[in-house]
């Protein structure tokens, strides 16, 4: 090769290389707009399982699917409000990036009508339309289970036609995004706690007159309780003196059946091992001061008459018609207090009976959970269950479709679950002491909303508190010596000020979409403080405040937070409180070099947790002391 051709070759090569390099900066780096996917394939937010199951098939709720620049899963929202509310959360853009593409339900292609609830009904799904091209109707009569609904149309004429019939205004996407978001969220659940306690107090207070009803009949020796009940005038008390009564009683009038239990006496009603012992079939009945035993052992009654059209017919069949010591059916305002129960099936079964109070009851259930049933079973019966004690059985308290039920100040020992929440939103679980359940302490299932779980103490279970659903508030709980302390499956929720000590795994973050606020919690002595299997990087701090992690290193200028971030999912950081030498290793400059920028594209990262502002000392010393840990060992001064 002569010098000239060599030169030409080199020059050509250089030109190609430089052109290629420059070209890299000129082309669009692959952010082309993705096509919409099947909604079922998205990670879905904004609807409870009950709504999903109970809504008629032709109800076609407005939906959104979003492709975020930094998040590999496509996120689906039921309701445009669910999207705009989530978008308004702090740090939303940092976590997910900006939307590369955003599609909304197109009602133009359907024969849209609103039903009596304001829910949109169509003859089939109309497809997707790019949100920026769509026309939106706001402030119309349209509703979703979550409240007001914004509907979207590809064609302006269809939007106008809709407003002519159902009111509202047609606006564009920008305007929709700018509208203030009013939606009940985790802060609603938090702010509700005190009020819900007060309402429960009121309900309990309203029961006092039932206990003060005058005694009209005292059950005589040789007489049956049933006879006395049948003889007593309304609004009076049937008194059952000391003794054992072998019979089953049906109360179908507003009376109080009272034994001497509260005064140290003992009147026992023995059902003889067949069916339910006391059945209440009238409003404003009270059952107080008795011992009940000899229930049947039927857990599931296959012959029960059930409306098979109801979406939860199989649940009612399975759980709603078993034997019980006390059974309350279709009766509101019923009080069961100071009653001691020994049962082979349910302790107390409450079905379709709102505003009931179960109070200071003791239930002894089966030794093996598989052999027994629920301590208290409430089905479509919100009320108050308090100051009671449960031993064994299957679930100490099981609640099905009882929105707003209050379960507080109870002791729960043994059984499968302490509390088992199914299809019930706005529930309050407070101040319960839960020990040694076979599967979990407080178990929330079926994606309810605004569950409040506060001030409970759960120990020695495979799973302390397991959450589900969204917009929940989990605070000030003590979780000690469990296999797994707490899960953060409930999304867009607040988990704060919990004390999580000596568990095998403190917290498992399993929600796919990182949308929770986890802050002010104390992690001490757990084999693994926190772990996550899947999803993206989560930040567990809020307003420059994180959690207390035993082992986290770093100096603190303000005696409040450490200047070094802590990553409980990191192999070195997770060993800081257990392995000698790790405090030195974690300070290696190469780790700082990596950690420095890691928060930049969190949505693209594999499942991990970072606390950017770990606390210098545990924020809840009293709770820590209650958990058996000396808080003085962990103060900021003691460590630095």
């Amino acid at each position: 090769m002569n010098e000239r051709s060599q030169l030409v070759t080199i020059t050509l090569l250089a030109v190609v290389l430089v052109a290629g390099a420059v070209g890299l900066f000129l082309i669009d780096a692959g952010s082309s707009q993705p096509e919409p996917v099947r909604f079922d394939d998205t990670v879905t937010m904004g609807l409870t399982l009950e709504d999903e199951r109970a809504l008629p098939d032709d109800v076609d709720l407005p939906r959104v699917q979003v492709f975020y620049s930094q998040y590999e899963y496509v996120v689906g929202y039921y309701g445009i409000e669910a999207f705009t509310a989530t978008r308004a959360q702090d740090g939303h853009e940092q976590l997910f990036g900006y939307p590369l593409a955003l599609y909304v339900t197109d009602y133009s292609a359907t024969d849209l009508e609103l039903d009596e609830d304001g829910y949109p009904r169509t003859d089939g799904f109309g497809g997707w339309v790019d949100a920026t091209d769509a026309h939106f109707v706001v402030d119309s009569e349209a509703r979703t289970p979550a409240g007001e609904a914004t509907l979207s149309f590809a064609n302006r004429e269809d939007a106008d036609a809709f407003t002519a019939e159902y009111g509202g205004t047609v606006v564009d996407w920008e305007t929709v995004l700018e509208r203030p978001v009013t939606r009940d969220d985790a802060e609603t659940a938090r702010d509700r706690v005190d009020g819900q306690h007060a309402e429960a107090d009121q309900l309990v207070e309203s029961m006092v007159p039932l206990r003060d009803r005058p005694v009209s009949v005292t059950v005589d020796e040789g007489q049956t309780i049933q006879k006395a009940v049948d003889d007593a005038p309304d609004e009076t008390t049937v008194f059952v003196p000391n003794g054992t009564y072998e019979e089953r009683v049906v109360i179908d009038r507003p009376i109080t059946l009272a034994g001497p239990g509260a005064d140290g006496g003992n009147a026992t009603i023995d059902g003889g091992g067949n069916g339910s012992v006391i059945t209440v079939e009238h409003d404003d009945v009270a059952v107080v001061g008795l011992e009940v035993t000899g229930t049947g052992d039927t857990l599931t009654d296959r012959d029960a008459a059930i409306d098979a059209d109801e979406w939860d017919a199989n649940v009612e069949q399975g759980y709603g018609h078993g034997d019980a010591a006390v059974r309350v059916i279709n009766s509101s305002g019923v009080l069961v207090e100071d009653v001691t129960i020994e049962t082979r099936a349910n302790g107390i079964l409450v079905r379709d009976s709102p505003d009931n109070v179960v109070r200071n009851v003791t239930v002894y259930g089966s030794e093996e959970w598989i052999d027994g049933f629920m301590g208290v079973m409430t089905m479509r019966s919100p009320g108050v269950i308090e100051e009671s004690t449960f031993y064994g059985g299957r679930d100490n308290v099981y609640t099905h479709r009882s929105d707003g039920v209050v379960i507080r100040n109870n002791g729960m020992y043994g059984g499968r679950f302490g509390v088992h929440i199914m299809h019930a939103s706005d529930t309050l679980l407070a101040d319960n002491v839960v020990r040694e359940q076979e599967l979990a302490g407080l178990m929330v299932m079926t994606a309810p909303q605004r569950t409040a779980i506060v001030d409970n103490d759960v120990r020695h279970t495979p799973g302390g508190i397991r959450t589900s659903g969204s917009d929940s508030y989990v605070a000030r709980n003590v979780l000690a010596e469990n296999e797994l302390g707490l899960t953060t499956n409930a999304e867009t929720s607040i988990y704060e000020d919990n004390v999580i000590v000596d568990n095998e795994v403190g917290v498992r973050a399993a929600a796919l979409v990182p949308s929770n606020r986890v802050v002010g919690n104390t992690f001490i002595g757990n084999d693994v403080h926190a772990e996550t299997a899947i999803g993206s990087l989560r930040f567990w701090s809020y307003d420059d405040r994180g959690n207390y992690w035993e082992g986290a290193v770093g100096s603190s200028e303000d005696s409040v937070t450490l200047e070094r971030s802590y990553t409980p999912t990191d192999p070195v950081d997770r060993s800081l409180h257990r392995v000698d030498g790790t405090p030195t290793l974690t300070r290696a400059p190469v780790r700082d070099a990596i950690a420095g920028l890691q928060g930049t594209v969190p949505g693209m990262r594999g499942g991990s947790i970072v606390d950017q502002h770990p606390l210098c000392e545990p924020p809840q010393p009293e709770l820590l002391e209650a958990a058996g840990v000396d808080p003085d060992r962990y103060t900021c001064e003691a460590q630095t």
Partner: protein
Amino acid sequence: MTDGDVAKETEGVTGTETTETGHAYATPGARGLISAIVRRELRTVARTRTFALLTAALAAILLGIGWAGGGMESGYVPTVVDVLTPLEVLVPIVAVVFGYRAILGDRERGELEVFRTYPISSWQLVLGTYLGRAIGVVLAVTVPLTLVFIGVVFTETERLRVYATHAGADSPVLFARLIVLAVVFALVVLAIAIAVSALVSSARTGLVAAALALLVVLFGLDLAIIYGFVAGPLGEGSLIYALPLSPLSAFRGLVLEKVIVTAAGTGPRAASPIASLFGLAAWTIGSLVVATLGVEHLE
């Protein structure tokens, strides 16, 4: 560099011209002279095992960081985020190692004196040396980063298959941009190293001067900009144009602006690309001019 390598370097201009062209010192043009020097430098680079070792070490470190940081399994942009800060330190070290003895070596062995007898001017010598070593530096930076790139391609991300997924704003193009920017940055620091090597006269001062240049590039210039911003001379409006005064900040700014922000979304601008490129070009040309002056005047 071993003594043997140094000795072999001298074959460069003095030997090859006759054997390869067959003409005994037929007056070659400027291009011919430069390309002869380039070839000599390339042979030096190829023979010096420490350069290969350095490249291998860089590859090992970057792969290790990409793996340990979790970026490699997450995607291209997370990997860029993981390796950016290490690159800011490692690329200048590599470039300085490649360049700091280039002209100093010629001076120590008296070859600069020999060159004076040839029809070759100082700028030709400097440019040839620079281009020759540049090819080595380009390889030393490109090969490790390409290995990391391949690592990202072949590392499976753990996903739930039941859900629809998409790539988001992640793209191999963004990683390719990082490689280009790292190469450009390395070439700038190489020019600075060549300038240092032209200004010193002994191996000992050469090493100290190289270390000093590294400290200035890694810390000094950024500290000066920070001081300027905090103490006041740099107004808020001019910071983005002052950043390129430090090649390190120019590099970091370009990566943030052209690779990471593309994925991360909004916020204040990270850099002015034009100003950054201008700054990098100025550092390169300025350094080569200084090197030329050094060769001419410090004999």
